[in-house]
């Protein structure tokens, strides 16, 4: 596969904040999500890719060409900022046609291209409107159309779903994915919402305090976080520090003090173990399970999260989170202060060195 965007060792010092040794590769037609908390430097990174900001060090390659010194107008990159930045003095039509007019395309060609893209994005009925009169979702589509109509090599989206209300957000996720496959463009999407990364991305880079903590598929980020930050930020739920010691072939024991876990792999020394609440099996009676880890605990508290119920279970002073479906919550008749058995498979415990 062809590399569409490559960042090599990017540094940028903003006095109070630094981007440090950022390197990443996005392949053609990839949906690449940069995930991080606010203040991680996500927008600045996008602006460096777009050419709005110059890095102090490092290289930006787009389609294999070194673009580090080129201004934004030479990069052919579509940019949709968080507030969409529609030109308020131009109609929707003129907003979309802006890049084509700059390229001095003949008037009839511009008309055709704007019409085609407006139909694809289902905004043809809005062309005569002023951007001020659009709803959030409509404004987003117009901003996408304006960026896509110039047939960019890369589409940069800055928190595209942050400004729309939560109900619409789900719908727009599907829409973004559809747009990407329809236009076959490479997307770099930055967000602080890990569920967005999970549902949209082919690849995720986790950015924290100006440094990339991990790059991988959503599954790798989600189930095999390389750092405690990544585990915490993707709401891993259960992260504990302990001392590891290898036992029989392919297995180790991690001692947390009050509790110990059997994990897969040979580990030694200080580690962190992490497992997601959905990987904890709960029962009121002991089970004959293949799971290597059986614990006994008391339900301290629970939170109803809609389809799932999050249990907080005290195990020898350790608080372990576990998900049960709402129906099994009722079937088991779980209550606070109830004694339960917990089962976690060794293969589902991820060890962070």
């Amino acid at each position: 596969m062809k590399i569409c965007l490559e960042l090599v060792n990017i540094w940028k010092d903003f006095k109070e904040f630094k981007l440090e040794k950022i390197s990443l590769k996005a392949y053609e037609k990839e949906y690449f999500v940069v995930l991080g908390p606010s203040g991680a430097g996500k927008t600045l990174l996008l602006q460096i890719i777009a050419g709005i900001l110059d890095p102090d060090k490092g290289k930006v390659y787009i389609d294999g060409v070194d673009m580090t010194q080129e201004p934004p107008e030479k990069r052919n990159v579509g940019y949709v900022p968080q507030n969409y930045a529609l030109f308020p003095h131009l109609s929707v039509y003129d907003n979309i046609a802006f890049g084509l007019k700059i390229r001095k395309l003949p008037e009839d060609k511009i008309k055709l291209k704007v019409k085609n893209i407006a139909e694809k994005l289902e905004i043809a009925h809005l062309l005569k409107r002023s951007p001020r009169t659009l709803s959030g979702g409509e404004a987003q589509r117009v901003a996408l159309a304006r960026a896509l109509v110039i047939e960019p090599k890369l589409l940069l989206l800055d928190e595209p779903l942050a400004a729309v209300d939560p109900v619409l957000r789900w719908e727009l996720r599907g829409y973004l994915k559809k747009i990407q496959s329809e236009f076959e463009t490479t997307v770099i999407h930055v967000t602080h919402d890990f569920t967005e990364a999970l549902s949209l991305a082919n690849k995720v880079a986790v950015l924290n305090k100006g440094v990339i903590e991990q790059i991988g598929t959503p599954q790798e980020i989600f189930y095999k976080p390389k750092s405690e930050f990544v585990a915490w930020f993707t709401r891993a739920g259960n992260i504990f520090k302990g001392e590891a010691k290898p036992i029989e072939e392919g297995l180790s024991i991690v001692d947390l003090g009050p509790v110990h876990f059997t994990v897969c792999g040979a580990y030694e020394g200080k580690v962190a173990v992490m497992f997601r609440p959905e990987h904890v099996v709960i029962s009121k009676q002991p089970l004959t399970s293949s799971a290597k880890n059986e614990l006994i605990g008391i339900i301290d508290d629970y939170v109803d999260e809609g389809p799932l119920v999050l249990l907080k279970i005290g195990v020898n002073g350790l608080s372990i989170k576990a998900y049960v479906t709402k129906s099994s919550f009722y079937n088991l008749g779980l209550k606070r202060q109830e004694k339960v058995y917990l089962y976690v498979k060794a293969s589902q415990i991820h060890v962070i060195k």
Partner: protein
Amino acid sequence: MKLNKGYYIFSTLGSILILFLLIPVAICLALGGAALGDVVQDKEALDAIYLSFHAGFVSGILIAIFGTPLAYVLSRHKNSFSQIVVSSLEIPLALPHSVAGIMVLLAYNSRAPIGSLLSRIGLTIEDNYWGIVFAMMFVSAPIFVTTVRAGFDSVDVELENVARTLGASLLKVFFKVSFPLAFRHFVAGFVLSLARAISEVGAIIIVAYYPKVAATLVIERFLGYGLDAALSLSAALALISLAVFASLRLILKEAEQ
């Protein structure tokens, strides 16, 4: 709705100020308006009014040409150097206008180094048309730059960023995005600096008493012949100024829609 007591205090105090401002205008227009017919036959007065507006517009246009790029740069680059520039732009506003006139004369008279260069291309200022324009520019340019800079401040930088990614160079972004969006402030800055220029008298008298602008002539007639002599010219000047500024504001409103 029952109005509360505080509201009465506020509106009484406010009304007093409004009356204080409007009563002199009304009296001048009423008394002078009766003698307005005299001005039509008064060639000296007509010439002076024409000169005031001519020099005022030329000053305004020159300020716009040099001041708009300055306002843009000051708005986009907020650092300690631009802060110094912004503060120094306020100097002319803080000076008594006669002092401003002395400064302009001192720097740009035809025997001074810069002035001698300027007079070689016809820009002699002592008792000359260009002296009037220079004095006007000196006192009114800061108002223009401050107003237009605020206009550029109100333009979201992301709009410019997007325009650049869409292929527009810096200059194109300025003419297609930033300037159109700051246009209201541009016109407001032009009108305010024009008003300031036409009302200027202190600096003009020092630099170029002749040719006489309308404001100079009002002072000359008042000092030489008394209040009545200055009245009709004052009323005419006031009327024309109000008409010009009212129509500029109308044009501005039209341009917005």
